[in-house]
Protein backbone atom coordinates (compact mmCIF):
# COMPACT_ATOMS: atom_id res chain seq x y z
CA UNK A 1 0.00 0.00 0.00
CA UNK A 2 2.96 2.35 -0.32
CA UNK A 3 2.06 3.41 -3.82
CA UNK A 4 3.16 6.93 -4.59
CA UNK A 5 0.54 9.08 -6.20
CA UNK A 6 1.37 10.14 -9.68
CA UNK A 7 -0.18 12.25 -12.39
CA UNK A 8 -2.77 14.05 -10.31
CA UNK A 9 -2.84 16.74 -12.95
CA UNK A 10 -4.38 14.26 -15.43
CA UNK A 11 -7.33 13.75 -13.09
CA UNK A 12 -7.75 17.46 -12.51
CA UNK A 13 -7.42 18.21 -16.22
CA UNK A 14 -10.07 15.64 -17.10
CA UNK A 15 -12.43 17.20 -14.55
CA UNK A 16 -11.65 20.68 -15.85
CA UNK A 17 -12.53 19.62 -19.38
CA UNK A 18 -15.68 17.92 -18.08
CA UNK A 19 -16.73 21.17 -16.37
CA UNK A 20 -16.07 23.05 -19.59
CA UNK A 21 -18.20 20.66 -21.60
CA UNK A 22 -20.88 20.84 -18.95
CA UNK A 23 -21.32 24.60 -19.28
CA UNK A 24 -20.65 25.17 -22.97
CA UNK A 25 -23.86 26.72 -24.26
CA UNK A 26 -26.11 24.36 -26.18
CA UNK A 27 -28.96 25.35 -28.44
CA UNK A 28 -32.34 25.09 -26.74
CA UNK A 29 -33.51 21.99 -28.55
CA UNK A 30 -30.34 20.09 -27.59
CA UNK A 31 -30.47 21.01 -23.88
CA UNK A 32 -31.95 17.69 -22.89
CA UNK A 33 -29.35 15.68 -24.79
CA UNK A 34 -26.38 17.11 -22.94
CA UNK A 35 -24.27 14.23 -21.59
CA UNK A 36 -23.40 14.46 -17.89
CA UNK A 37 -19.67 14.83 -18.40
CA UNK A 38 -18.66 15.41 -14.79
CA UNK A 39 -20.57 12.38 -13.52
CA UNK A 40 -19.07 10.23 -16.26
CA UNK A 41 -15.50 11.31 -15.57
CA UNK A 42 -16.15 10.68 -11.89
CA UNK A 43 -17.45 7.17 -12.62
CA UNK A 44 -14.33 6.42 -14.65
CA UNK A 45 -11.85 7.57 -12.01
CA UNK A 46 -13.76 5.96 -9.16
CA UNK A 47 -13.66 2.70 -11.09
CA UNK A 48 -10.02 2.93 -12.14
CA UNK A 49 -8.47 4.49 -9.03
CA UNK A 50 -10.89 3.83 -6.16
CA UNK A 51 -8.24 4.60 -3.54
CA UNK A 52 -7.72 8.11 -4.94
CA UNK A 53 -11.10 9.27 -6.18
CA UNK A 54 -13.56 8.48 -3.44
CA UNK A 55 -16.74 9.86 -1.98
CA UNK A 56 -15.07 12.95 -0.57
CA UNK A 57 -13.56 13.80 -3.94
CA UNK A 58 -16.96 13.33 -5.57
CA UNK A 59 -18.57 15.61 -2.99
CA UNK A 60 -16.14 18.45 -3.65
CA UNK A 61 -16.51 17.97 -7.41
CA UNK A 62 -20.27 18.24 -6.98
CA UNK A 63 -19.91 21.39 -4.91
CA UNK A 64 -17.96 23.03 -7.71
CA UNK A 65 -20.63 21.90 -10.13
CA UNK A 66 -23.23 23.62 -7.94
CA UNK A 67 -21.31 26.87 -8.15
CA UNK A 68 -20.92 26.52 -11.91
CA UNK A 69 -24.59 25.82 -12.41
CA UNK A 70 -25.65 28.39 -9.88
CA UNK A 71 -27.87 25.80 -8.21
CA UNK A 72 -28.42 25.16 -4.53
CA UNK A 73 -25.16 24.40 -2.77
CA UNK A 74 -24.87 20.67 -1.99
CA UNK A 75 -27.33 19.46 -4.58
CA UNK A 76 -24.91 18.04 -7.13
CA UNK A 77 -22.57 17.18 -4.27
CA UNK A 78 -25.14 14.80 -2.79
CA UNK A 79 -25.97 13.22 -6.14
CA UNK A 80 -22.33 12.73 -7.10
CA UNK A 81 -21.45 11.32 -3.69
CA UNK A 82 -24.11 8.65 -4.14
CA UNK A 83 -22.95 7.92 -7.69
CA UNK A 84 -19.40 7.54 -6.39
CA UNK A 85 -20.59 5.23 -3.63
CA UNK A 86 -22.37 2.91 -6.07
CA UNK A 87 -19.42 2.91 -8.44
CA UNK A 88 -16.96 2.20 -5.64
CA UNK A 89 -18.96 -0.71 -4.35
CA UNK A 90 -19.19 -2.16 -7.86
CA UNK A 91 -15.76 -1.24 -9.17
CA UNK A 92 -14.32 -4.77 -9.23
CA UNK A 93 -17.19 -6.05 -11.34
CA UNK A 94 -17.35 -2.92 -13.45
CA UNK A 95 -13.79 -3.48 -14.63
CA UNK A 96 -14.69 -6.93 -15.91
CA UNK A 97 -17.75 -5.73 -17.85
CA UNK A 98 -17.83 -5.48 -21.62
CA UNK A 99 -18.27 -1.97 -22.94
CA UNK A 100 -21.96 -2.56 -23.67
CA UNK A 101 -22.54 -3.71 -20.09
CA UNK A 102 -20.63 -0.70 -18.82
CA UNK A 103 -22.74 1.59 -20.97
CA UNK A 104 -25.89 0.04 -19.57
CA UNK A 105 -24.67 0.66 -16.04
CA UNK A 106 -23.70 4.21 -16.93
CA UNK A 107 -27.20 4.68 -18.32
CA UNK A 108 -28.67 3.60 -15.01
CA UNK A 109 -26.25 5.68 -12.91
CA UNK A 110 -26.65 8.87 -14.94
CA UNK A 111 -30.40 8.34 -14.98
CA UNK A 112 -30.33 8.10 -11.21
CA UNK A 113 -28.16 11.20 -11.02
CA UNK A 114 -30.54 13.20 -13.22
CA UNK A 115 -33.58 12.00 -11.30
CA UNK A 116 -32.01 12.88 -7.95
CA UNK A 117 -30.98 16.38 -9.00
CA UNK A 118 -34.40 16.96 -10.57
CA UNK A 119 -36.24 15.90 -7.43
CA UNK A 120 -34.03 17.98 -5.21
CA UNK A 121 -34.50 21.01 -7.43
CA UNK A 122 -38.26 20.60 -7.21
CA UNK A 123 -38.09 20.14 -3.45
CA UNK A 124 -35.95 23.27 -3.14
CA UNK A 125 -38.32 25.14 -5.47
CA UNK A 126 -35.52 25.80 -7.91
CA UNK A 127 -37.43 24.19 -10.76
CA UNK A 128 -40.96 23.26 -11.66
CA UNK A 129 -41.87 19.69 -12.43
CA UNK A 130 -41.78 18.99 -16.13
CA UNK A 131 -41.85 16.02 -18.46
CA UNK A 132 -39.17 13.36 -18.23
CA UNK A 133 -37.38 14.44 -21.40
CA UNK A 134 -34.36 15.45 -19.35
CA UNK A 135 -33.62 11.74 -18.90
CA UNK A 136 -32.45 11.73 -22.52
CA UNK A 137 -29.20 13.02 -21.08
CA UNK A 138 -28.61 9.57 -19.61
CA UNK A 139 -29.05 8.03 -23.05
CA UNK A 140 -26.54 10.34 -24.68
CA UNK A 141 -24.12 9.75 -21.79
CA UNK A 142 -24.34 5.98 -22.26
CA UNK A 143 -23.74 6.50 -25.95
CA UNK A 144 -20.63 8.60 -25.38
CA UNK A 145 -19.27 6.38 -22.60
CA UNK A 146 -17.29 3.77 -24.64
CA UNK A 147 -15.29 6.46 -26.43
CA UNK A 148 -14.67 8.40 -23.27
CA UNK A 149 -13.63 5.23 -21.48
CA UNK A 150 -11.01 4.42 -24.13
CA UNK A 151 -9.73 8.01 -24.15
CA UNK A 152 -9.38 8.23 -20.38
CA UNK A 153 -7.78 4.77 -20.18
CA UNK A 154 -5.20 5.82 -22.76
CA UNK A 155 -4.48 8.93 -20.76
CA UNK A 156 -4.25 7.01 -17.50
CA UNK A 157 -1.81 4.51 -18.98
CA UNK A 158 0.15 7.04 -21.03
CA UNK A 159 0.80 9.29 -18.03
CA UNK A 160 0.88 6.32 -15.60
CA UNK A 161 -1.61 7.89 -13.24
CA UNK A 162 -1.77 5.99 -9.96
Amino acid at each position, binding site marked *: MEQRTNGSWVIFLSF*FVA*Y*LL*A*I*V*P*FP*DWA*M*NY*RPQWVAMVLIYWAMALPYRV*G*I*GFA*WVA*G*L*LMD*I*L*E*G*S*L*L*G*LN*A*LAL*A*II*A*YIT*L*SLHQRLRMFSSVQQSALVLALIGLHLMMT*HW*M*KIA*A*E*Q*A*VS*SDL*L*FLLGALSSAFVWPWMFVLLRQMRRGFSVR
Partner: protein
Amino acid sequence: MSLEYRVAAFVMLSLAVMFADSRFDYLDRVRYSLGFLTAPVFWVADIPARVSYWIDDVFVSHGDLIEENARLREELLFAQRELQLLAGLASENSRLRALQEASISVNGKILTAEIINISSDPGSRRVLINRGAQHGVETGQALLDAYGLMGQVVEVLPFTSWVMLITDSRHGTPVQVNRNGERAIARGSRGDVPELELEYVPDTSDIVVGDLLVSSGLGQRFPKDYPVAEVTSVVHDRGQPFATIKARPLAQLDRTRHVMLVELAQHELDAQLQGADAAVWLESDFEFIGPPRPKMPPAEEVMVLESDTVVPPDVDPEDSASVDDRGQGPLPQAEVSPDRGQGPLPQPAQGQE
Protein backbone atom coordinates in the same frame (compact mmCIF):
# COMPACT_ATOMS: atom_id res chain seq x y z
CA MET B 1 -18.14 -1.26 6.30
CA SER B 2 -16.54 2.13 6.18
CA LEU B 3 -17.81 2.98 2.69
CA GLU B 4 -21.41 3.02 3.87
CA TYR B 5 -20.59 5.20 6.84
CA ARG B 6 -18.70 7.59 4.65
CA VAL B 7 -21.48 7.96 2.10
CA ALA B 8 -24.01 8.40 4.90
CA ALA B 9 -21.85 11.15 6.40
CA PHE B 10 -21.53 12.97 3.10
CA VAL B 11 -25.26 12.66 2.40
CA MET B 12 -25.99 14.21 5.80
CA LEU B 13 -23.43 16.94 5.13
CA SER B 14 -25.04 17.69 1.74
CA LEU B 15 -28.48 17.89 3.27
CA ALA B 16 -27.23 20.22 5.97
CA VAL B 17 -25.48 22.42 3.41
CA MET B 18 -28.56 22.53 1.21
CA PHE B 19 -30.76 23.44 4.12
CA ALA B 20 -28.39 26.16 5.25
CA ASP B 21 -28.04 27.51 1.73
CA SER B 22 -31.74 27.70 1.13
CA ARG B 23 -32.77 29.18 4.50
CA PHE B 24 -29.91 31.34 5.67
CA ASP B 25 -27.19 33.34 4.03
CA TYR B 26 -24.14 32.02 5.90
CA LEU B 27 -22.97 30.23 2.80
CA ASP B 28 -22.91 33.25 0.54
CA ARG B 29 -19.27 33.81 1.43
CA VAL B 30 -18.44 30.17 0.64
CA ARG B 31 -20.21 30.54 -2.67
CA TYR B 32 -18.32 33.73 -3.33
CA SER B 33 -14.92 32.20 -2.56
CA LEU B 34 -15.63 29.11 -4.62
CA GLY B 35 -16.47 31.52 -7.42
CA PHE B 36 -12.75 32.29 -7.69
CA LEU B 37 -12.16 28.61 -8.50
CA THR B 38 -14.84 28.40 -11.15
CA ALA B 39 -14.04 31.70 -12.87
CA PRO B 40 -11.32 30.15 -15.11
CA VAL B 41 -13.78 27.55 -16.37
CA PHE B 42 -16.14 30.24 -17.55
CA TRP B 43 -13.26 32.21 -19.00
CA VAL B 44 -12.07 29.23 -21.05
CA ALA B 45 -15.60 28.27 -22.07
CA ASP B 46 -16.10 31.75 -23.49
CA ILE B 47 -12.97 31.67 -25.67
CA PRO B 48 -14.71 30.38 -28.84
CA ALA B 49 -17.29 33.18 -28.72
CA ARG B 50 -14.59 35.79 -28.13
CA VAL B 51 -12.49 34.42 -30.98
CA SER B 52 -15.42 34.48 -33.36
CA TYR B 53 -16.15 38.10 -32.41
CA TRP B 54 -12.50 38.95 -32.87
CA ILE B 55 -12.48 37.27 -36.29
CA ASP B 56 -15.61 39.18 -37.25
CA ASP B 57 -13.86 42.38 -36.27
CA VAL B 58 -10.54 41.68 -37.94
CA PHE B 59 -11.49 40.01 -41.18
CA VAL B 60 -13.91 42.52 -42.54
CA SER B 61 -13.64 44.19 -45.88
CA HIS B 62 -13.07 47.90 -46.32
CA GLY B 63 -16.35 48.25 -48.21
CA ASP B 64 -18.29 46.60 -45.41
CA LEU B 65 -16.71 48.94 -42.88
CA ILE B 66 -17.62 52.00 -44.90
CA GLU B 67 -21.14 50.74 -45.31
CA GLU B 68 -21.49 49.99 -41.61
CA ASN B 69 -20.03 53.37 -40.74
CA ALA B 70 -22.58 55.12 -42.93
CA ARG B 71 -25.40 53.12 -41.43
CA LEU B 72 -24.25 53.83 -37.89
CA ARG B 73 -23.97 57.53 -38.64
CA GLU B 74 -27.50 57.52 -39.96
CA GLU B 75 -28.72 55.71 -36.86
CA LEU B 76 -26.87 58.15 -34.63
CA LEU B 77 -28.51 61.07 -36.36
CA PHE B 78 -31.88 59.48 -35.94
CA ALA B 79 -31.22 58.69 -32.29
CA GLN B 80 -30.06 62.24 -31.64
CA ARG B 81 -33.24 63.62 -33.12
CA GLU B 82 -35.25 61.34 -30.86
CA LEU B 83 -33.14 62.46 -27.94
CA GLN B 84 -33.91 66.11 -28.68
CA LEU B 85 -37.61 65.37 -28.59
CA LEU B 86 -37.10 63.34 -25.46
CA ALA B 87 -35.35 66.19 -23.67
CA GLY B 88 -38.34 68.40 -24.33
CA LEU B 89 -40.71 65.74 -23.12
CA ALA B 90 -38.62 65.08 -20.02
CA SER B 91 -38.63 68.70 -18.92
CA GLU B 92 -42.33 68.97 -19.59
CA ASN B 93 -42.91 65.79 -17.65
CA SER B 94 -40.92 66.97 -14.66
CA ARG B 95 -42.80 70.24 -14.68
CA LEU B 96 -46.14 68.42 -14.68
CA ARG B 97 -44.93 66.11 -11.96
CA ALA B 98 -43.86 69.04 -9.84
CA LEU B 99 -47.31 70.53 -10.31
CA GLN B 100 -48.88 67.32 -9.13
CA GLU B 101 -46.33 66.85 -6.35
CA ALA B 102 -45.57 63.41 -7.68
CA SER B 103 -42.31 61.71 -6.89
CA ILE B 104 -39.43 62.23 -9.24
CA SER B 105 -38.41 59.37 -11.46
CA VAL B 106 -34.99 58.07 -10.70
CA ASN B 107 -32.46 57.11 -13.34
CA GLY B 108 -29.79 54.70 -12.15
CA LYS B 109 -26.26 54.46 -13.47
CA ILE B 110 -25.53 52.04 -16.27
CA LEU B 111 -22.79 49.43 -16.59
CA THR B 112 -22.25 47.58 -19.85
CA ALA B 113 -21.78 43.82 -19.73
CA GLU B 114 -21.61 40.81 -21.98
CA ILE B 115 -23.45 37.53 -21.71
CA ILE B 116 -20.84 34.81 -21.56
CA ASN B 117 -22.87 31.72 -20.78
CA ILE B 118 -26.34 30.36 -20.34
CA SER B 119 -27.59 27.99 -17.70
CA SER B 120 -27.13 24.34 -18.60
CA ASP B 121 -30.23 23.46 -16.61
CA PRO B 122 -33.16 22.97 -19.00
CA GLY B 123 -35.63 23.89 -16.23
CA SER B 124 -34.42 27.43 -15.68
CA ARG B 125 -33.71 30.40 -17.88
CA ARG B 126 -30.65 32.14 -16.60
CA VAL B 127 -27.60 33.73 -18.17
CA LEU B 128 -24.15 34.50 -16.88
CA ILE B 129 -22.67 37.95 -17.45
CA ASN B 130 -19.04 38.96 -17.29
CA ARG B 131 -19.45 41.45 -14.44
CA GLY B 132 -19.29 40.52 -10.81
CA ALA B 133 -18.71 41.85 -7.34
CA GLN B 134 -15.35 43.27 -8.42
CA HIS B 135 -17.19 45.57 -10.84
CA GLY B 136 -19.77 46.62 -8.27
CA VAL B 137 -22.65 44.37 -9.27
CA GLU B 138 -25.28 43.73 -6.60
CA THR B 139 -28.11 41.28 -6.31
CA GLY B 140 -31.33 42.71 -7.67
CA GLN B 141 -29.89 44.95 -10.34
CA ALA B 142 -31.82 44.99 -13.60
CA LEU B 143 -30.41 43.81 -16.90
CA LEU B 144 -31.51 45.50 -20.12
CA ASP B 145 -30.64 45.30 -23.75
CA ALA B 146 -31.35 47.91 -26.37
CA TYR B 147 -34.88 46.63 -26.95
CA GLY B 148 -36.29 45.80 -23.55
CA LEU B 149 -35.95 44.46 -20.06
CA MET B 150 -34.08 41.15 -19.78
CA GLY B 151 -33.99 40.16 -16.13
CA GLN B 152 -32.37 40.73 -12.77
CA VAL B 153 -29.18 39.67 -11.03
CA VAL B 154 -29.82 36.78 -8.65
CA GLU B 155 -26.32 35.70 -7.69
CA VAL B 156 -23.08 37.64 -7.64
CA LEU B 157 -19.72 35.89 -7.98
CA PRO B 158 -16.34 37.62 -7.96
CA PHE B 159 -16.04 38.24 -11.71
CA THR B 160 -19.36 37.00 -13.03
CA SER B 161 -23.02 37.08 -12.04
CA TRP B 162 -26.08 35.00 -12.73
CA VAL B 163 -29.07 36.82 -14.15
CA MET B 164 -32.54 35.32 -14.06
CA LEU B 165 -34.37 36.18 -17.27
CA ILE B 166 -37.92 37.48 -17.19
CA THR B 167 -39.01 34.33 -19.03
CA ASP B 168 -37.94 32.05 -16.17
CA SER B 169 -40.99 30.36 -14.73
CA ARG B 170 -40.08 31.58 -11.25
CA HIS B 171 -39.75 35.21 -12.26
CA GLY B 172 -42.56 37.75 -12.11
CA THR B 173 -42.23 41.23 -13.59
CA PRO B 174 -44.55 44.04 -12.50
CA VAL B 175 -45.79 45.57 -15.75
CA GLN B 176 -48.41 47.98 -16.96
CA VAL B 177 -50.06 48.43 -20.30
CA ASN B 178 -48.53 51.44 -21.95
CA ARG B 179 -51.82 52.47 -23.56
CA ASN B 180 -54.01 52.74 -20.47
CA GLY B 181 -51.86 52.02 -17.44
CA GLU B 182 -53.50 48.73 -16.44
CA ARG B 183 -51.21 46.85 -14.12
CA ALA B 184 -50.40 43.14 -14.03
CA ILE B 185 -47.70 40.66 -13.12
CA ALA B 186 -45.95 39.03 -16.08
CA ARG B 187 -44.65 35.59 -15.18
CA GLY B 188 -42.34 33.49 -17.31
CA SER B 189 -44.11 30.62 -19.03
CA ARG B 190 -43.54 27.03 -18.07
CA GLY B 191 -43.49 25.76 -21.61
CA ASP B 192 -40.60 25.48 -24.02
CA VAL B 193 -41.36 28.77 -25.75
CA PRO B 194 -39.75 31.72 -23.97
CA GLU B 195 -42.77 33.95 -23.40
CA LEU B 196 -44.61 35.73 -20.60
CA GLU B 197 -48.05 35.13 -19.13
CA LEU B 198 -50.05 37.82 -17.38
CA GLU B 199 -51.37 36.48 -14.11
CA TYR B 200 -54.75 37.12 -12.52
CA VAL B 201 -56.03 39.57 -15.09
CA PRO B 202 -59.83 39.86 -14.89
CA ASP B 203 -61.83 39.18 -18.04
CA THR B 204 -63.08 42.74 -18.09
CA SER B 205 -59.66 44.33 -18.31
CA ASP B 206 -58.84 46.30 -21.41
CA ILE B 207 -55.84 44.49 -22.87
CA VAL B 208 -55.71 43.65 -26.57
CA VAL B 209 -53.24 41.96 -28.87
CA GLY B 210 -50.42 44.29 -29.78
CA ASP B 211 -50.42 46.24 -26.53
CA LEU B 212 -47.01 47.27 -25.31
CA LEU B 213 -46.22 46.22 -21.73
CA VAL B 214 -43.77 48.42 -19.88
CA SER B 215 -42.27 47.93 -16.45
CA SER B 216 -44.35 49.63 -13.82
CA GLY B 217 -41.51 50.08 -11.36
CA LEU B 218 -43.73 48.89 -8.52
CA GLY B 219 -41.30 46.20 -7.41
CA GLN B 220 -38.65 48.91 -7.04
CA ARG B 221 -36.23 46.66 -8.86
CA PHE B 222 -36.69 47.61 -12.46
CA PRO B 223 -36.53 51.06 -14.00
CA LYS B 224 -40.01 52.40 -14.63
CA ASP B 225 -41.50 52.61 -18.12
CA TYR B 226 -38.96 50.39 -19.79
CA PRO B 227 -40.44 48.19 -22.57
CA VAL B 228 -40.90 44.58 -21.49
CA ALA B 229 -43.12 42.70 -23.91
CA GLU B 230 -45.78 42.85 -26.55
CA VAL B 231 -49.11 41.07 -26.05
CA THR B 232 -49.43 38.26 -28.59
CA SER B 233 -52.65 36.52 -27.58
CA VAL B 234 -55.64 37.24 -25.38
CA VAL B 235 -58.08 34.42 -24.69
CA HIS B 236 -61.31 34.97 -22.75
CA ASP B 237 -62.51 31.56 -21.64
CA ARG B 238 -65.75 31.57 -19.68
CA GLY B 239 -64.69 28.49 -17.78
CA GLN B 240 -61.64 30.27 -16.44
CA PRO B 241 -61.78 32.91 -13.71
CA PHE B 242 -59.13 35.05 -15.41
CA ALA B 243 -58.17 35.91 -18.95
CA THR B 244 -55.25 34.02 -20.47
CA ILE B 245 -52.86 36.59 -21.86
CA LYS B 246 -49.51 35.82 -23.41
CA ALA B 247 -46.80 38.23 -24.38
CA ARG B 248 -43.56 38.06 -26.29
CA PRO B 249 -40.52 39.67 -24.63
CA LEU B 250 -39.07 42.55 -26.61
CA ALA B 251 -35.49 42.02 -25.46
CA GLN B 252 -33.45 39.72 -27.66
CA LEU B 253 -33.09 37.16 -24.92
CA ASP B 254 -31.42 34.46 -26.99
CA ARG B 255 -29.55 36.51 -29.57
CA THR B 256 -27.89 39.45 -27.95
CA ARG B 257 -24.52 39.43 -26.26
CA HIS B 258 -24.16 43.07 -25.31
CA VAL B 259 -26.34 44.13 -22.41
CA MET B 260 -26.61 46.86 -19.77
CA LEU B 261 -26.85 46.63 -15.99
CA VAL B 262 -28.80 49.34 -14.23
CA GLU B 263 -27.67 50.31 -10.76
CA LEU B 264 -30.34 49.78 -8.15
CA ALA B 265 -32.53 52.81 -7.97
CA GLN B 266 -33.32 51.74 -4.42
CA HIS B 267 -30.48 53.62 -2.75
CA GLU B 268 -31.39 56.91 -4.32
CA LEU B 269 -35.04 56.28 -3.71
CA ASP B 270 -34.38 55.65 -0.03
CA ALA B 271 -32.34 58.81 0.18
CA GLN B 272 -35.12 60.79 -1.38
CA LEU B 273 -37.75 59.29 0.85
CA GLN B 274 -35.66 60.03 3.91
CA GLY B 275 -35.13 63.54 2.66
CA ALA B 276 -38.86 63.97 2.22
CA ASP B 277 -39.49 62.62 5.71
CA ALA B 278 -36.99 65.02 7.18
CA ALA B 279 -38.68 67.88 5.41
CA VAL B 280 -42.07 66.86 6.74
CA TRP B 281 -40.75 66.62 10.27
CA LEU B 282 -39.09 69.95 10.11
CA GLU B 283 -42.17 71.60 8.77
CA SER B 284 -44.47 70.15 11.35
CA ASP B 285 -42.07 71.13 14.13
CA PHE B 286 -42.03 74.55 12.70
CA GLU B 287 -45.76 74.81 12.79
CA PHE B 288 -45.93 73.89 16.44
CA ILE B 289 -43.05 75.93 17.65
CA GLY B 290 -43.18 78.90 15.39
CA PRO B 291 -45.03 82.10 16.14
CA PRO B 292 -48.39 82.80 14.48
CA ARG B 293 -48.03 82.66 10.76
CA PRO B 294 -49.26 86.01 9.48
CA LYS B 295 -46.72 87.95 11.52
CA MET B 296 -43.83 85.90 10.27
CA PRO B 297 -41.77 87.52 7.53
CA PRO B 298 -42.07 85.04 4.66
CA ALA B 299 -38.53 85.13 3.37
CA GLU B 300 -37.00 83.93 6.62
CA GLU B 301 -39.36 81.05 6.93
CA VAL B 302 -38.16 79.54 3.74
CA MET B 303 -34.55 80.21 4.52
CA VAL B 304 -34.86 78.12 7.67
CA LEU B 305 -36.40 75.29 5.75
CA GLU B 306 -33.70 75.36 3.16
CA SER B 307 -30.83 75.26 5.52
CA ASP B 308 -32.16 72.18 7.28
CA THR B 309 -33.63 70.08 4.52
CA VAL B 310 -32.14 68.38 1.53
CA VAL B 311 -32.94 71.24 -0.80
CA PRO B 312 -29.74 72.06 -2.69
CA PRO B 313 -28.17 75.36 -1.62
CA ASP B 314 -28.15 76.83 -5.11
CA VAL B 315 -31.83 77.72 -5.02
CA ASP B 316 -32.05 81.28 -6.10
CA PRO B 317 -33.86 83.67 -3.77
CA GLU B 318 -36.33 84.71 -6.43
CA ASP B 319 -37.58 81.22 -6.58
CA SER B 320 -38.21 80.93 -2.88
CA ALA B 321 -39.90 84.29 -2.97
CA SER B 322 -42.31 83.02 -5.53
CA VAL B 323 -43.10 80.05 -3.36
CA ASP B 324 -43.82 82.38 -0.50
CA ASP B 325 -46.11 84.52 -2.56
CA ARG B 326 -48.24 81.56 -3.19
CA GLY B 327 -48.08 80.57 0.45
CA GLN B 328 -49.76 83.74 1.61
CA GLY B 329 -53.16 82.51 0.56
CA PRO B 330 -56.01 82.01 3.00
CA LEU B 331 -54.98 78.44 3.94
CA PRO B 332 -51.82 78.17 6.04
CA GLN B 333 -51.25 74.49 5.13
CA ALA B 334 -51.13 75.30 1.47
CA GLU B 335 -47.79 76.94 1.82
CA VAL B 336 -46.22 73.89 3.33
CA SER B 337 -47.38 71.26 0.93
CA PRO B 338 -46.15 72.72 -2.35
CA ASP B 339 -42.76 73.24 -0.85
CA ARG B 340 -42.54 69.62 0.24
CA GLY B 341 -43.27 68.41 -3.23
CA GLN B 342 -40.71 70.67 -4.73
CA GLY B 343 -37.90 69.76 -2.40
CA PRO B 344 -35.46 68.32 -4.89
CA LEU B 345 -36.82 70.16 -7.93
CA PRO B 346 -37.56 73.79 -7.17
CA GLN B 347 -37.33 75.41 -10.59
CA PRO B 348 -40.27 74.06 -12.58
CA ALA B 349 -43.00 75.44 -10.37
CA GLN B 350 -41.88 78.93 -11.08
CA GLY B 351 -42.19 78.37 -14.78
CA GLN B 352 -45.77 77.35 -14.37
CA GLU B 353 -46.91 80.28 -12.34
